């Protein structure tokens, strides 16, 4: 297979950056939504649930279009972000990250919600009687017990964002070095006859990326959280 060409390196690193930033940025939102859907009761819950699922249901190109209409240069949210924190999305890697994040969101929310729903509330109650406030209870009991779901959500979200194509090319365009992630590079290559070898190389990179993420997540979830209090007892 040989080493990677500079262009391939560029694409790989960009993909890493885009997916990494996308997942990191959307994680709190996804968890918040999962929490609301798992723990709260409010009118319109099914509606929120449906909205969260939208990016999964709509063809990615439509999602890309909707992003263009919401986060474009002249669009309300696009203008808002540009004016307040100077963040623009159109044709920038941030846009690719935004698209990846939106597409990963429903997967992350579902997995996390599933785990949160199985956390035993009685254990949270026990923590409260031991003097832990709601936040401490959350971080020491709820969160660790929901770890499998959070991990699954991360893995699903990361995999989805690494593979994201339709919304990205529609919203962020296919700009080498800026928004050309692995799937977009693969798409370009696929357009030309006789490009099978190049496609295979790039696809191999995608797979490698995800297998690493997968292995990492398995390792993380196996690593036990012990040894922290050993100096006391």
């Amino acid at each position, binding site marked *: 297979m040989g080493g990677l060409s500079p262009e391939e390196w560029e694409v790989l690193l960009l993909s890493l950056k885009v997916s990494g930033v996308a997942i990191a940025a959307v994680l709190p939102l996804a968890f918040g939504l999962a929490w609301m859907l798992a723990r709260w009761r409010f009118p319109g819950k099914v509606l929120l649930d449906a909205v969260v699922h939208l990016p999964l249901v709509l063809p990615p190109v439509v999602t890309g279009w909707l992003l263009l209409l919401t986060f474009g240069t002249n669009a309300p949210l696009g203008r808002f972000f540009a004016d307040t924190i100077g963040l623009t999305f159109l044709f920038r890697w941030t846009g690719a990250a935004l698209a990846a994040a939106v597409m990963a969101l429903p997967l992350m929310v579902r997995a996390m919600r599933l785990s949160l729903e199985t956390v035993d509330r009685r254990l949270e109650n026990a923590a409260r009687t*031991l003097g*832990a406030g709601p936040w401490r209870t959350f971080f020491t009991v709820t969160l660790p017990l929901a770890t499998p779901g959070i991990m699954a959500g991360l893995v699903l979200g990361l995999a989805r964002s690494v593979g994201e194509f339709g919304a990205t090319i529609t919203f962020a365009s296919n700009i080498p070095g800026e928004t050309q992630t692995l799937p977009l590079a693969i798409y370009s290559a696929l357009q030309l006859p006789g490009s099978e070898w190049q496609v295979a190389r790039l696809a191999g990179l995608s797979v490698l990326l995800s297998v690493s993420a997968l292995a990492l997540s398995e390792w993380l979830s196996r690593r036990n959280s012990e040894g922290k209090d050993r100096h006391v007892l």
Partner: protein
Amino acid sequence: MSFDIAMTLQRGSLHMTYEFTAGPGLTALFGPSGAGKTSLLDAVAGLARPTDGHIAVAGTVLFDRARKIDLKPEKRRCGYVFQDHRLFPHRSVRRNLLYGWRLVRPEERWLSIDLALDLLGIGHLLDRMPATLSGGEAQRVAIGRALLSAPRFLLMDEPLASVDANRREEILSLIERIRDELKLPILYVSHDRAEVERLAQQIVAVEPVQAKAAPRDQVAPINSRPINMRRISLVPAPMSSSLASRK
């Protein structure tokens, strides 16, 4: 008054009314299964919200519907030994025991870790995960976890249910020392009459609400053996207390 309780609780379609005051020392809750003993402890711990009434422990009002007081569980400083243990499954025995211990100021602690491990016989279990404990082992760890959180009063729901005779003796005398030396108010649920006779300054009989009956105030409070009513303080005994001495 150690406990001053008058309240109504709802569980499912059942409305349970409690009303009793108890002097210092250990108050045993005695009554048939399903009478509402655990529900009472939950309400005192702040895990179940009464629909009405008030709860005061050692002069501190924990709940009062009329005065809109409802202390959060973590502010009530109770040491609750649950009927179903409720050890944290993701934490080793060590980290279960230290959970509450870490959350109190050192000067408020009244039980040393060494002594707890020794009296409860759980020193060799520190590195184990709760899932690998036997029934009695889990129960003793649960007792240890509750005591080490330096509570100002204890709620114990059949704490000795699956503890063997020898160990039971040690734990009983530990509870007696907590009761007598630290003067902590204790609500103690047990079905074992001998245990209750030995420990309790007063016994409250909890009577079941008639199943399927319409909501009705039914729990007849019986404060038997009411003893000396002098007010006791929730301030723990100084650390020089023999319980902490082996720290």
